[in-house]
């Protein structure tokens, strides 16, 4: 006869959190950084087809680290939710906060339900405002907790080192190229010595409040990134 053994709720949650954290720590980091004209996303990503950074709606974008199939699921859900809301009300009624709430509820429910394994993802939801003070960056973790970030934020495997680098080198009102540069350097400083990250390994995008179109999301091409990295000298 097998004896059912007791696992305390604390231990259960800790095990699930460790499991999720380990999965997330395996991946490369993503940096979100505010610059003069909006919000810039930078990730180290060798693939040009499988994106970590995506557009959700006019002023809202999404970035994720962790398991691709899981955050891709959440991204598609976000696009559907935003489009449905914008279609049934108005485009202006789609907000980053609403989306962050929906993600938080979803991740939280999955994390604490016994039936499913927790999602091994962390997500940024950012919304660009008319002014820099209206910009919002939300960071969501695997257990559904939400943090409101300012200036810059990093998540993924080497988040702490990169955040430490940004803490020293970030300044307000950066230009776009300077923001990309400092973000890439932060990603490169994940070990004792800085690595060299070539432009074609960088996935970058911005929410640019000065863009004339309704949709403020712009992906930066490899040449644009290369140019931004080269202007350092």
């Amino acid at each position, binding site marked *: 006869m097998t004896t059912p053994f007791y696992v305390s709720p604390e231990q259960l949650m800790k095990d699930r959190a460790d499991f999720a954290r380990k999965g997330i720590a395996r991946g490369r980091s993503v940096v979100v950084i505010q610059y003069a004209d909006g919000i810039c996303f930078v990730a180290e990503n060798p693939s040009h087809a499988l994106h970590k950074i995506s557009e*959700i709606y006019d002023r809202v974008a999404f970035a994720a680290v962790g398991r691709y199939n899981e955050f891709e699921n959440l991204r598609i859900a976000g*696009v*559907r939710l935003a*489009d449905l809301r914008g*279609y049934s009300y108005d485009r202006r009624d789609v907000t980053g906060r609403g989306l962050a709430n*929906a993600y938080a*509820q979803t991740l939280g*429910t999955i994390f604490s339900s016994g039936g499913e394994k927790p999602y091994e993802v962390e997500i940024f939801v950012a919304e660009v405002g008319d002014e820099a003070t209206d910009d919002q960056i939300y960071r969501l973790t695997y257990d559904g907790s939400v943090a409101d970030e300012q200036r810059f934020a990093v998540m993924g495997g080497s988040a702490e080192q990169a955040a430490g680098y940004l803490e020293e080198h970030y300044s307000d009102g950066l230009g776009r190229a300077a923001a990309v540069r400092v973000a890439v350097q932060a990603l490169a400083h994940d070990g004792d010595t800085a690595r060299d990250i070539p432009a074609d390994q960088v996935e970058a995008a911005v929410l640019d409040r000065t863009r004339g179109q309704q949709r403020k999301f712009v992906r930066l091409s490899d040449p644009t990134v290369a140019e931004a990295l080269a202007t350092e000298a």
Partner: protein
Amino acid sequence: MTQHPLGPRLPGAYVAPGSASFADFLAGQAPELLPDRRTATTAASVGIEVPHGTTIVAATFDQGVVMAGDRRATMGNIIAQRDIEKVFPADEFSCVGIAGSAGFAVELVRLFQTELEHYEKIEGTPLSLDGKANRLSGLLRANLAMAMQGLAVLPLFAGFDLRRGYGRIFEYDVTGGRYEETAFHAVGSGSLFARGSLKKLFRQGLQESECVTATVQALYDAADDDSATGGPDLARRIFPIVAVVTAEGYRRMPDDDVAALADEVVAARMQRPDGPAAPLT
């Protein structure tokens, strides 16, 4: 009632892999928001007059395509609105103009716009121009029942084909049939006159400004002979909506530029009311 999808967590359908179509998603999740449900389907069957939009013209030129629409909506013999807009951007490289039942048309355009954007975001790449034209066909076909009740909508779709490198025009029938037009086309109550006019004015190798003038002339001719099409309203300064789509994308011509052009056209008509004369042979 609109369903609020935010329960404790996003429902399964939101995270289900599969369709990149917003219309399909809507049909499953919130069918009451589809255009045929949102507009009162019984309006036509009980004989209530609803506003109708009238004439849309489109013509191609070397670098792209121009679409222009008059500003009038009519309800029987009444002018329902003098400054309605019937030409819309469908996405960054295409535009859609709509003649027919106005309220329903606007809903259909909103659904079409969302459909294209939704696909682009989910798939990470925009639909081809043919793909967009086919989707519009599908949306029209889904609303055939409305057309049969008298709430017909006839779109004209035009865009710049980035792969082929030139502007293209598509017309539709109420059953969703899709037909590509070369050179130019018009839809709506004044379309016969507009098409006749464009026949004489259009030629290959037009510049953008000449092509815009041709479409404004065509709308003038349509308004001249069709009571439901609005001509340039000089007193209120209401002029056609003109959209230009080129390799650089969709651009709505600034109202002041259209006003200046319309003034020129009207001034010329003061000298010759029937408009520019085409050579006999």
